[in-house]
């Protein structure tokens, strides 16, 4: 059951990821990415990360992709653009990198060998956190985020502030002395 679910989600994720890169029309790419985000959310549900599954759909599918679609519409990209000339080199490099990563994963056998197996790693996790995990996914995330990761959280808000100011500055008409297209 779990294996079937994993292989279904994995197959669709890989297929749509390749399609995002392969489609010549940007709108098709964005829609393929939308399908991929939904399947990543499904994968998160099977991994007991329900809150992140919801977040994945709300933020990625609901907000970020809308922004992409706006920009594709905004720039009115009708022409189907071609690939780079070095397309063979790019794909070859990707295959070499993939072979290397798979070799590393399979030779290290992370999570399978008894030396660094999941059981040993689970034991190393703090028991307090493990006790909270059972209380509910969202609450556990909230507790962790607002105690241990307090400082990164404030930095994240600063990043968002900078992004907001930067995006307004760049996109607002006339701020950089340019006219609307």
């Amino acid at each position, binding site marked *: 059951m779990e294996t079937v679910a*994993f292989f279904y989600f*994995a197959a669709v*994720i*890989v297929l749509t990821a390749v399609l*995002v*890169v392969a489609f010549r029309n*940007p709108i098709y*790419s964005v829609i393929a*990415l939308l399908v*991929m985000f939904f399947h*990543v959310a499904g*994968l998160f549900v099977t*991994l007991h*990360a329900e809150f*992140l599954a919801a*977040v994945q759909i709300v*933020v*990625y599918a609901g907000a*970020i992709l809308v*922004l*992409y679609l706006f*920009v594709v519409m905004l*720039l009115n*990209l009708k022409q189907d*653009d071609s*690939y*780079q000339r070095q*397309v063979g*080199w*790019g794909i070859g*490099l*990707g295959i070499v*990198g*993939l072979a290397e990563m798979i070799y590393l*994963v399979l030779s290290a056998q*992370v*999570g*399978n060998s008894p030396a660094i197996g*999941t059981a040993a*790693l*689970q034991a190393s*996790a703090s028991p307090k*956190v*493990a006790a*909270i*995990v059972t209380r509910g*996914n969202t609450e*556990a*995330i909230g507790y962790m*985020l607002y105690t241990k*990761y307090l400082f990164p959280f404030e930095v994240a808000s600063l*990043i968002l502030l900078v*992004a907001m100011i*930067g*995006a307004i500055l*760049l*996109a607002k008409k006339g701020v*950089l002395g*340019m006219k609307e*297209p």
Partner: protein
Amino acid sequence: MVPLSYYMVLSAIVFLTGFVGVLIRRNIIILLLSIELMLNATNINFVAFSHYLNDVSGQVFVFFTLTVAAAEVAVGLAIIIALYRGKATVNVEDLNLMKW
């Protein structure tokens, strides 16, 4: 039970698809979409490890990835709009002003 290495291989495939996309495409919007693919590959890895280690920290890190993805999208697309006003192109090969 699906071994953790399966998730790592899936994440590697998605990441390298995004990597190849950045290398072979000319449309700058597709380049940003490929970076989104890479960020999602890291998210899959974070959540898989969080599940197998029984530690929520991985899921907290997905939040930060999400924040960075949103910031990157907001600023990146604003840069694309500004570029399009100036040069009326989204082809990265035409953006060679700073190329020596």
